[in-house]
């Protein structure tokens, strides 16, 4: 029982990280209809910024985190200026390759500076555990789950209840009509990319202390997050969260009870099967772009 509880908890923590990573490209996608393949690079950048501020500069987390998040918002805006604004009206294949390329550039720069050696970032409440139903659960995993829950609640509140959120949803449903209503669609794209960068930064900061980081960390996380988003039906926040938690559990349970070495493989197999059977995701899609 204790074993099962700890497997489930670590699955939930993994799923939360996937959800955080997914939130970034979902927000961008909602406003622009573009899936940002640079998200993995942005997450890696967030993780390394955590390393730079907390380890190299020795800043305390409550000081380091806001700096990183603001910086990452700026990186997101810059990304929009480089690969989204100039490519308006170009085929989506071109935009996909461009965002992927920027992600690779970020990854290559970090590899150039930090090399292949893995770096460790200290966790909040490092080493602390709580006992739940006979299992030892790391407090940091609970913090991750909590931060993710807060981020999702905040996004749902913004999208669902505020004027800004309604305008955002209008942009997502039909950009042409939205811009006729006086909604600044282009400015929204900038904000959306910025928010995507910020959320990537948050995901990077959260994932970095769980295990030593290398420059591939974000890319792998991005693919898993894609899988979560696909299963949940792209564009629905609650679907993405459900998909991410389910995949985290599948990966951990499969690793614990089927074959350990294929642990990272199960989510992808599940995703490919889902695309084959229900191309709109298990919960259906809400997005304007036919996926």
């Amino acid at each position: 029982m204790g074993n099962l509880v700890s497997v489930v908890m670590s699955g939930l923590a993994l799923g939360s990280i996937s959800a955080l990573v997914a939130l970034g490209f979902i927000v961008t996608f909602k406003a622009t209809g573009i899936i940002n393949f640079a998200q993995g690079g942005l997450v890696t950048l967030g993780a390394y910024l955590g390393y730079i501020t907390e380890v190299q500069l020795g800043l305390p987390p409550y000081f380091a985190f806001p700096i990183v998040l603001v910086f990452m918002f700026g990186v997101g805006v810059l990304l929009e200026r480089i690969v989204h604004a100039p490519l308006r009206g170009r085929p989506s294949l071109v935009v996909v390759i461009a965002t992927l390329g920027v992600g690779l550039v970020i990854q290559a720069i970090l590899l150039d500076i930090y090399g292949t050696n893995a770096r460790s970032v200290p966790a909040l409440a490092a080493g602390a555990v709580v006992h739940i139903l006979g299992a030892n659960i790391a407090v940091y995993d609970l913090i991750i789950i909590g931060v993710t829950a807060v981020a999702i609640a905040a996004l749902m509140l913004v999208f669902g209840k505020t004027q800004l959120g309604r305008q955002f949803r209008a942009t997502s449903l039909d950009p042409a009509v939205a811009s006729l209503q006086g909604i600044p669609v282009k400015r929204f794209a900038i904000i959306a990319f910025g928010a995507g960068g910020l959320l990537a930064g948050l995901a990077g900061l959260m994932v970095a202390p769980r295990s030593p980081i290398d420059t591939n960390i974000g890319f792998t996380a991005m693919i898993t997050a894609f899988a979560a988003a696909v299963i949940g039906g792209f564009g629905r926040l609650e679907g993405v969260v459900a998909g991410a938690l389910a995949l985290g559990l599948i990966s951990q349970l499969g690793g614990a009870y089927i074959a350990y070495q294929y642990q990272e493989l199960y989510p992808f197999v599940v995703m490919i099967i889902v695309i084959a059977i229900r191309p709109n995701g298990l919960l259906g899609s809400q997005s304007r772009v036919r996926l």
Partner: protein
Amino acid sequence: MSVSEQSPAEQVSTPAEHSAPASLADRLDAVWSRRKRANRRRLLGIGVFAVIGIIIPFLTSNDYEFTVLGNVLLYALAGIGFYFVLGLSGQFAFSQAAIFGLGAYSSAWAERLGANFWVGLLVAIVIVGVVAAVIRLLLWRASHFYFAIATLAFAQVSSIIFLNWTAFTGLSGDASINTVPSFFGVDIDSPEAFYWLFFGFVIVALLISYLITVSKRYRETVAVRDRPDAAAGLGISVLRNQLFIFVLGSLFAGVAGVLFASSQGFIAPDSFGLNLGIDLFVVVVIGGMYSVWGAILGAIFVVVLPEVTRGLSDQRTLILAILLVVVIVLLPRGLVGIVQLIRDTVTRIVKRGRNVA
């Protein structure tokens, strides 16, 4: 969601003389003769490429240069396949590097069981063909973005399998290939011999691409890429068309993988990871996504650039990634686009000169 940016060659052209009202028959004639001229030009291109490929070894003296040339040809072979999938058919596939690895491991596996090089090649072709077909059929309803995501996941799955399925690949994915390919009794065991082997395969690949270009299939594929609904309305099976091109393009990558494995003699999962994926993207995008010659130019560029800028070898990935972004944003038709631009400018100047004279 259109994928292409039409290159001038593909645009539906109107007769040059707008002034004289040409009859329909005349106009059809003009279209046909233009197409015939273009096809002759394509054959001529392959001929020129063959002649250059035959001359170059006489200017080459050492094994190192032959190895570099061989790498160019391998990248060109995989790149031609990727051009079919990405450029011609407009499918966002990230599976090319994994398929390359699958070909390499399949032949290594067959040869470990006692097959010779050619049987190993055949086994690899069958395995790659089946896997590519299954993938494409599984994703038959997937849209562009989902196809990209799913093939990205396939690449990830493959690298995990290469690493862990030791019965197929080898301990932690390391496999050595000891079989020496032989061609009508001639052992292929030096970089020079491998150059000729690769050269033969690239020529065959170019001829296959020529046959496709002159066939109905080419025009159907462009139609499916640019206007899938209209193409379906004309009775073209979108799935069958995309399946054909995807499997064909994957086979090219798989064969390149087989050749890579037997020329290296040793393969590991790292050879088929993200870096190879980036390289292949750069080959196709930098050369020019909408022409088979783009793959050749791109292959030359990607292989030779790091050799001449040896001091920057640590920054190789960084340089290639930056180039990928710059080219896709500023030069959507790649190096081929530059060549076409120069050709068009020269023709215009020559014409203007004639008019003045």
